[in-house]
């Protein structure tokens, strides 16, 4: 029997709409805010011992993860790392995210991976491996498949500036450049990779220079400027979709808290943290919307209340689940072969 690809169901030509409507701008606001509120809530829940493992907060970096995933096609692929709550906020039901963090039986991964390894097949977000930079390699493979099948889809991958020192990440961006694959490589430069400063990772400040080493188009932007992120990513995605090749985008941003919740992050100067908190992407975007009368204070309140309720509901959902039966640990190793559990 001959086997063929499933044929794509979308149009081959996609209009590039870099302009957001006012409604969309508001929707985007709700999403970045949702990411922030969810994140702050889960930091508290972690501190209260309500779930196991650790928690990697993305507070301060909402724009770099949420915005690139906004208005992607369902078939577009997202390869996140460990701090990309925002990608999931943009594409996944909140309940699934909460369930992932609680690692109960109704988590998308059945509790097997790690709280912050957010992924969800129906959203085409791969549950990440913890190996730094690894999903950029997968995203390159995904983009290769899109190119082979002549499909108009795009693969996004997210790393921190720290990961750009990793050989596998480089092999991926190089290959993508050589073959003009439909990739967008997002580098979130938050100045620190755990406790290692960016100056120990690269001999320059602008990580978009990485693109020059592989002959790719690269650009550095303010990652805390929501609309700038949108414009840059949307045009990169349009380029990729039209077969014009990959783009590397460095987004300068900052994580407000520790690498994970158990990290006091005392290797950073308080002034630095304060400086960046003043550049809060959400407050800036909100001001823009309010100033331009795209959002009213009442609407803002309504949005907040709605998000609060959604988050509450998601937490309840997650906490309502049980851990899966231990035998589940033996499943999902192979499709057709179950592992034994001697002496258990």
């Amino acid at each position, binding site marked *: 029997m001959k086997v063929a690809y499933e044929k794509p169901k979308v149009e081959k030509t996609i209009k590039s709409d870099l302009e957001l409507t006012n409604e969309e701008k508001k929707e985007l606001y709700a999403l970045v805010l949702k990411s922030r509120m969810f994140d702050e809530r889960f930091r508290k829940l972690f501190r209260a011992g309500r779930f196991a493992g650790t928690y990697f907060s993305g507070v301060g970096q909402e724009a770099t993860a949420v915005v690139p995933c906004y208005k992607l096609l369902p078939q577009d*692929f997202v390869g996140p790392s460990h701090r990309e709550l925002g990608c999931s906020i943009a594409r996944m039901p909140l309940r699934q995210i909460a369930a992932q963090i609680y690692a109960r039986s109704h988590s998308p991964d059945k509790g097997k991976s790690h709280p912050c390894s957010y992924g969800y097949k129906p959203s085409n977000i791969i549950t990440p491996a913890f190996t730094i930079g690894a999903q950029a390699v997968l995203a390159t493979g995904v983009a290769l498949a899109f190119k082979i099948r002549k499909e108009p889809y795009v693969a996004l991958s997210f790393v921190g500036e720290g990961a750009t020192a990793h050989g596998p990440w480089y*092999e991926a961006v190089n290959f993508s450049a050589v073959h003009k694959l439909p990739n967008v490589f997002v580098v979130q430069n938050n100045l620190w990779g755990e406790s290692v400063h960016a100056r120990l990772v690269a001999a320059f400040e602008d990580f978009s220079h990485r693109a020059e080493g592989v002959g790719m188009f690269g650009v550095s932007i303010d990652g805390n400027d929501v609309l700038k992120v949108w414009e840059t990513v949307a045009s990169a995605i349009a380029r990729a979709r039209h077969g014009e090749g990959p783009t590397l985008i460095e987004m300068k941003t900052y994580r407000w808290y520790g690498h994970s919740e158990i990290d006091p992050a005392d290797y950073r100067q308080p002034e630095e943290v304060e400086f960046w908190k003043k550049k809060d992407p959400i407050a800036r975007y909100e001001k823009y919307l309010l100033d331009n009368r795209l959002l009213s204070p009442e609407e803002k309140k309504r949005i907040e209340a709605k998000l609060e309720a959604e988050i509450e509901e998601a937490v309840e959902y997650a906490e309502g689940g049980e851990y899966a039966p231990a035998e589940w640990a033996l499943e999902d190793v192979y499709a057709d072969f179950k592992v034994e559990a001697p002496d258990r």
Partner: protein
Amino acid sequence: MGRVITYIDAITEALDQEMARDERVFLIGEDIGLYGGVFKATKGLQKKYGEYRVIDSPISENLIVGAGIGSALVGMRPVPEIQFADFVSPAMDQIVQQAAKIRYRTGGAWSVPLVVRICCGGDVGGGLYHSQMNEAWFVHCPGLKVVMPSNPHDAKGLLLAAIRDPDPVLYFEHKRLYRSVKGEVPEGDYTVPIGPAEVKKTGKDITIVAYALMLVWGMEAAEKLEKEGISCEVIDLKTLLPIDKKTILESVKKTGKALLLQEAPKTAGVMAEISAIITEEVFDYLDAPVMRLAGLDVPPIPFAPPYEKFYLPTVDRIMKKARQLKAY
């Protein structure tokens, strides 16, 4: 209809037929397109299927496997090639952290139907970097399947089974066997199932377990030993993970003696596991200690020709060990 072809031709044929049948299958690796592979295993395929079905990659092993994995996530059936098993090390992360774990870490939502073809093995004068047998590194990774054929029939059938398997399979092909081993291979489509071992020769005194080159040499030794009055049952393991315990244990129960052959260095190799399985499960049936004949515990394989001969478990050494075991 069968006809006699070489081990490498069986591999080429399997790739060719599967690429014709299944549009999702593509190959990626170093020198596999324009050149047709350093051993010519992919000869003619780029011409036939095009540059994006047979992709000449840069020297980027991590990418070769990782891009394969990524493409598998969205429905392709990639068959990346690692030119020499010695150079699989840069791709370790993709194999052990991604391929082996993706089904598991996603609770079964995603899977990686991928076959990494890895050219391995010694007795070719390859020295320290073109001779290695490192299958044991991967047999330690649940989530992977590891197969290694020892004849053309299995080479084709296992490769077709591997490509159709829903999980990542490492397909080791022994370069010493490429052109030295010929055998009957059906022209059409068939698979050799992943998992089962095969009794290649029945016998009553000793069970020999081996795969790839050691199987070929083990058979040769067994036939010579037969004339000396030592009757060996020879098992071709074929799949190293998951291991077919049943076939091994049944045989050892019958013979009471096991001789395990391994080309790789002895310590912590695949045969250490087989030995443990035998002693754990059929200890009462054993009439002698389980014996292993293996490569030496030195970096494999030292170059100078006499060194390589010293390193390898040769037919003579197998026979000597078998006599020792028979006499125990």
